[in-house]
């Protein structure tokens, strides 16, 4: 099972995503914005996957993805975006920043887990 970092400024969302992942046997770390996530991820054992929201205070999710891709240990780690944003412009920006995939809220727990399985394999 994987170690996953879930980043969202909404406590409700962190709980929903966290419980979904834990129920599937994953180990979950959480952060409430991109800045906090980057700080934790930069100096610790790399996680297997990061799943991040886009609109967050301090550092948004697309910037987080771009920053993570600059770290050698995160060059090959799947980085998923989970957001209310569904526009092709935003998706394009996410892709350019180096995101692995884009999921639109409200999320479907089964779909989230199957996507994680797919990108981890």
């Amino acid at each position: 099972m994987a170690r996953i970092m879930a980043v969202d400024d909404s406590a409700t969302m962190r709980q929903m995503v966290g419980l979904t992942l834990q129920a599937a046997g994953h180990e979950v770390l959480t952060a409430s914005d991109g800045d906090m996530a980057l700080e934790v991820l930069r100096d610790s054992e790399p996680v297997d996957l990061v799943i991040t929201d886009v609109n967050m205070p301090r550092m948004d999710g697309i910037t987080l993805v771009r920053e993570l891709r600059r770290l050698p240990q995160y060059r090959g780690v799947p980085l998923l975006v989970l957001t209310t944003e569904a526009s092709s412009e935003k998706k394009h920006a996410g892709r350019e920043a180096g995101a692995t995939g884009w999921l639109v809220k409200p999320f479907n727990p089964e779909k989230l887990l199957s996507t994680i399985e797919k990108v981890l394999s």
Partner: protein
Amino acid sequence: MSGYLASLAPAGAPTAAPGFEKIQRRWDTRIERWCAKILPGEYFVTAHDEAITTVLGSCISACMRDPHAGVGGMNHFMLHEDTSQGRSEWMDPVAGLATRYGAYAMEQLVNDLMKLGGKRDRLEVKLFGGGRILASLTDVGRRNIDFAHAWLAAEGLRAVAEDVGDVFPRSIVYFPATGKVRVRHLRSLAGSRIGDREREYLRSLPVQQQTTGEVELF
């Protein structure tokens, strides 16, 4: 429009925030402001001194603003109908589709306020609606109120004012620039019409669920 009426209204409504161009707005002579009218499932945010109005039956509207940034907005939603029985099931953050839909409606509003410069820890929240309008076994309005309270508590927010529950529909006008809300309790006759519209909205939710929640791998 006659020349007389046109002369009362300013040339045009303030520029809508990106994504909100389709929300219907008209000049309201009584409040001397542009007024955006939102329907079930819609929301609106603004950085201007304009009003937002809606009519609520069992649905809930959260009015939120950041007084410091001068931005505010309002949503209008109802939880997805859940076939599960009892509070513990639908409040389940994972199993409860209802909760996921409600959290989405709240998050959309917060996100768009942040895009206009609002800060989530400065948000002033007011709650309205959740009346027992629809004749059904479960109190749909109560469920919506419970959800809104639980969501606010989890997010570390609190409603500074609310007018929720009871048996009547409400007409509300929100003034984000000042935070004031005008609430009018409507008679139950209006309630049946509002109830019809809400039932229709409730039926459309599963369809909306299918169009969102999409996954794209790059």
